[in-house]
């Protein structure tokens, strides 16, 4: 079996290497990929959309259908992980463990009994291990700055490398970092499952809703120059603003979905201890 696999892989590789003989040389300015559509994008983006970052303009304006369905694919992946893994109504264990934060004493609560309402106790699981103080502190200091950077990457996507996908992943990574450095319970408390679901759907909705608004205002789906009459700007600036709106939608959807997938995969759908 392995021999057949090796032979077929080498054959496929040899065919591809043979095909590269006809390829344009690397970084050739006259290669077919760079001669048909891309000169139009490079030369006309500024006057048509007023966005200096051509990648952002092509992503969210010229190819906005593609990006909308990419966002939908990410949302669908989140839903698929949820449906595959989430255990809907888990039976609560009869005994629950609570840890007194200040002294580190663990209290075992029998079934039916209740703890006096107090903020000093945190719910823990049997597999609980104490988080490292250094890692905890460093992460607590870093996470706000990571989130600020994520927002910057989304908001500054018109003028520098960045945009909704990258910023959304950075924002999602900050919450995942909280889950790794503390435990999953802490991260889920900050960002509940319901919030994840609603935000990832809301991001796709913002994107598709912007497109539908353009139809309602009398132009094609996702033709942002229709927004000029709503935003009180000229049509070119309206396209720039429309790109920002859908990038925010993409950012929200990607952030929530990344966290949602992580929560489900890392805890096997149980949302307890996690990694």
């Amino acid at each position, binding site marked *: 079996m392995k021999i057949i696999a090796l032979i077929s892989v080498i054959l496929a*590789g040899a065919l*591809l*290497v043979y095909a590269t003989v006809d390829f344009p040389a690397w970084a050739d*300015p006259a290669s077919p990929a760079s001669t048909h559509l*891309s000169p139009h994008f490079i030369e006309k983006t500024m006057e048509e959309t007023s966005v200096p970052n051509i*990648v952002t303009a092509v992503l969210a304006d010229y190819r906005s259908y593609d990006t909308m369905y990419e966002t939908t694919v990410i949302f669908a992946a989140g839903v698929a992980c949820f449906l*595959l893994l989430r255990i809907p109504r888990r039976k609560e264990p009869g005994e629950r463990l609570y840890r007194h934060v200040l002294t580190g004493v663990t209290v075992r609560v029998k079934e039916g009994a209740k703890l006096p309402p107090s903020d000093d106790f945190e719910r823990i699981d049997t597999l609980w291990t104490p988080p490292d103080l250094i890692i905890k502190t460093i992460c607590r200091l870093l996470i706000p700055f990571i989130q600020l950077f994520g927002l910057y990457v989304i908001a500054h996507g018109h003028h520098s490398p960045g945009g909704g996908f*990258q910023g959304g992943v950075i924002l999602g990574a900050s919450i995942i970092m909280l889950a790794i450095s503390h435990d999953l319970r802490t991260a889920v408390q900050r960002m509940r499952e319901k919030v994840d679901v609603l935000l990832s759907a809301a991001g796709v909705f913002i994107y598709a809703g912007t497109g539908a608004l353009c139809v309602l205002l009398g132009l094609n789906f996702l033709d942002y120059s229709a927004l000029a009459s709503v935003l009180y700007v000229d049509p070119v600036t309206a396209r720039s603003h429309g790109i920002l709106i859908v990038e925010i939608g993409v950012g929200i959807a990607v952030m929530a979905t990344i966290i949602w*997938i992580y929560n489900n995969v890392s805890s096997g759908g149980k949302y307890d201890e996690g990694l």
Partner: protein
Amino acid sequence: MDDLIQMVVAKYNYWIYTTLMMIGLYAMIAKNNLVKKIVGMSIFQTAIILFYVSTGAKKGATIPIIEHAHGAGTHMVHAVDYINPLPHVLMLTAIVVAVATLGVALALAIRVYDRYKTLEEDEILAQISEK
């Protein structure tokens, strides 16, 4: 000899991606463990992403962000000065989608493990054929 060196210099990027793709494809076909297959899939995706990004490169061109765009008056933008933005757009979305599909693949692997208590392909197939 000169021709050969010139061809190597002009094409070696494609050969690197082909090698990466072969590693990924071999892992997907021949490896027995499902997680190793998923790792192979990721390597394959990386090869495709690198290939696309390299087709966007242009000699002597800079990143596709127009310089002095606002506030420096109007000036002509020449396509020769900026690399091709299109492959970057396609791969930007592909990377995030790759992460999402990786999540789905891992979720499926977790379900398979729950059901069969193993991730080795031959053991799973043996358990299926027993029934």
